[in-house]
């Protein structure tokens, strides 16, 4: 029998660790799983196998990498079990045994060496902001808010525009903020979900050491992924952690950020899984959109808790699904075009990239635009 790391360190079977005896095999997890639309991944079956076998050999299960860790299975489980965590655990075994797709391996190695999964140099992390002359939150003791930019907005030129738009709004509203500059590094949200628990722990330690030196009231993140792990998986911090939609919604509500233009467009909003489903931040982004003058807002049928995942989470930015049905982002874009939407708004770097890519791959780039909420806001402030 193969001994897994889990069983050595925790001396628990998967069934004990994930309370699998509570599973009644109702199948709601699989029915709700967005990836099941295009993959062999069957989380109900996996739960049953984990229950009936003392340990599972995940090496042949290529479809384990299809999971986006959107957590829909976990939200829908009537017994409050955590099927999603079982997948992360099995990926952990794959990481321990070296059976990971090379692209995932490279992303993890880049996090280890450069502090980001995109292969960008560590000392170029803040290069996007050179001309913005932002305050250094690690030195400036006067600031109130630290803006945690995140890896993708730091390195991907497309998402840098979102960071710039947010900076513009902060400046406009007179927010006293700074960034961590080259001391910022990966939050580890995806690292943990790719099964690299050890690296995730290192990142927590490194980031916590930097955080402890900060004398701020609030940390604001661009990405729901950073927000999620800081809020739910890091040791408690002495400052509050907010996603930018929460912070900006408050700036607007308190009259600190005002608009000076109109947007005459039909828009919809795509709920990022790590913001909506996993952290129940549904209203803040909608209240920002509602406050933009001129905007006509319509909801997706699949919205809020039922939002369709873009397939960008859980390491999926670095590995494609093992099966090749239509990408969910393409489904999403088609839905929006049918609704007569001109702009799909979202609030997550991965959603932005995947949805925008989908408009191109299905040839709808002239029909519909994909933007981050902040990009639209910055046009009219």
């Amino acid at each position, binding site marked *: 029998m193969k001994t897994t790391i889990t069983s050595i360190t925790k001396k628990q079977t998967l069934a004990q660790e994930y309370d699998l005896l509570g599973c009644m095999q109702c199948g709601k997890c699989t029915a709700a799983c967005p990836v099941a639309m295009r993959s062999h991944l069957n989380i109900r079956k996996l739960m049953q196998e984990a229950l009936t076998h003392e340990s599972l050999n995940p090496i042949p299960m290529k479809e384990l990498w299809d999971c986006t860790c959107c957590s829909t299975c976990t939200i829908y489980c009537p017994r409050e079990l955590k099927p999603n965590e079982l997948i992360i655990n099995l990926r952990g075994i794959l990481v321990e045994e070296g059976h990971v797709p090379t*692209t995932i391996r490279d992303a993890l190695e880049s996090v280890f060496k450069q502090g980001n999964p995109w292969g960008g140099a560590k000392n170029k992390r803040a290069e996007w902001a050179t001309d913005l002359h932002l305050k250094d939150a690690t030195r400036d003791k006067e600031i109130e808010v630290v803006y945690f930019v995140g890896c993708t907005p730091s390195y991907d030129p497309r998402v840098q525009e979102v960071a710039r738009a947010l900076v513009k709004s902060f400046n406009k509203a007179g927010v006293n903020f700074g960034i961590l500059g080259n001391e910022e590094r990966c939050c580890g949200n995806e690292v943990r979900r790719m099964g690299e628990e050890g690296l995730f722990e290192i990142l927590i330690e490194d980031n916590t050491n930097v955080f402890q030196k900060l004398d701020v009231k609030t940390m604001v993140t661009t990405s729901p992924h950073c927000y999620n792990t800081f809020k739910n998986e890091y040791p408690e911090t002495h400052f509050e952690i907010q996603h930018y939609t929460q912070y900006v919604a408050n700036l607007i509500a308190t009259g600190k950020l005002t608009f000076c233009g109109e947007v005459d467009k039909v828009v919809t909003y795509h709920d990022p899984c790590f913001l909506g489903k996993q952290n129940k931040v549904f209203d803040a982004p909608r209240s920002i959109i509602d406050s933009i003058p001129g905007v006509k807002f319509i909801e997706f049928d699949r919205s809020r808790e039922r939002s369709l995942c873009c397939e960008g989470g859980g390491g999926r930015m670095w590995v494609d699904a093992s099966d090749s049905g239509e990408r969910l982002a393409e489904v999403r874009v088609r839905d929006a075009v049918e609704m007569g939407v001109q702009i799909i708004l979202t609030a997550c770097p991965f959603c932005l990239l995947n949805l925008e*890519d989908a408009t191109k*791959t299905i040839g709808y780039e002239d029909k519909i635009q994909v933007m981050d909420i902040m990009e639209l806001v910055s046009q009219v402030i």
Partner: protein
Amino acid sequence: MREILVLAEHRKGVLRDITWEMLSLGKELAEKMEAQLTTVLPGYEVKSLADELSTQADLVLLVEDERLQNFSSMAYQQVLSTLITTRKPIITLIGHTACGIDLAPGLAAALGMPLATDCLSLTLTEKELTAVRQIYGGKVNAEVACSCEKGCIATIRAGVVSPWGEETRKGKVEVIQSPSLEGISRQRFIEYVEAAIGGVDITQADIIVAIGRGIQDKENIPLAEELAKALGGTLACSRPIVDKKWLPKAHQVGTSGKTVRPKAYIALGISGAFQHIVGMKDSGVIIAVNKDPRAPIFEVADYGIVCDLFDFMPVLKEKAKELLQRR
């Protein structure tokens, strides 16, 4: 007489390219040092290879033994250390290949000789060997020096020296008695495992012609394929092309595909999403062709051409053919 010694590397009855490259380098060193160029050929029933080698070396030392039929670092070490001890060459050249990497350090340690590994070029004087080798993941070329008064060893990176290609010597072949080869039984050759065939390995290509959505239709792919062929390159693509199943996954460049570093990367109709750029930005020369002058691919391109790729491809193809013919 002074001597430059080169280890001939062969596999399955064929001399490997690195051997000719080292002989070319060895020839230069031998002329400068007024030394004899000698090559060692350990093997079994490889007389014909020895004859081939004699066209580019002054002397071929043929060491035949059944136990030398396939590479074994232990057996090779015994052969070479015996020869080096008795012949005292100024320098011994070994390929920086899987075999050389296995063999050279142990050999150098056993002989107590200096070793420079993965060398790009060598300069030799009476007293000193100066080698250029890369550090910091290839970002810096460092010159390292060691004494060669009592001999030295260098492993040479494949592909950095051009082979001469023509007959430069009429050397003789001398058969050498194989040493006792004691204690080599700990190492045993099992089999050669060939890299899986089936699809291309775009990471090994020197020239890549990559297509994106700008190619418009599956029917147009042969046009790009012909261009790649005319340039002696390999066809690659961005993710949408794989999504549409126009090319197999093995051709995909980017974060969810392969990372490539060819000498030249020609991007045709690829707008240059960051996820694609991460997979090709370290290419030697990047040439981008796109109708949209604002396409992000131009940010990383060394040469940017704003035009329709269907106008561009035939012109470059003809130019490539012309050049090939002139050669």
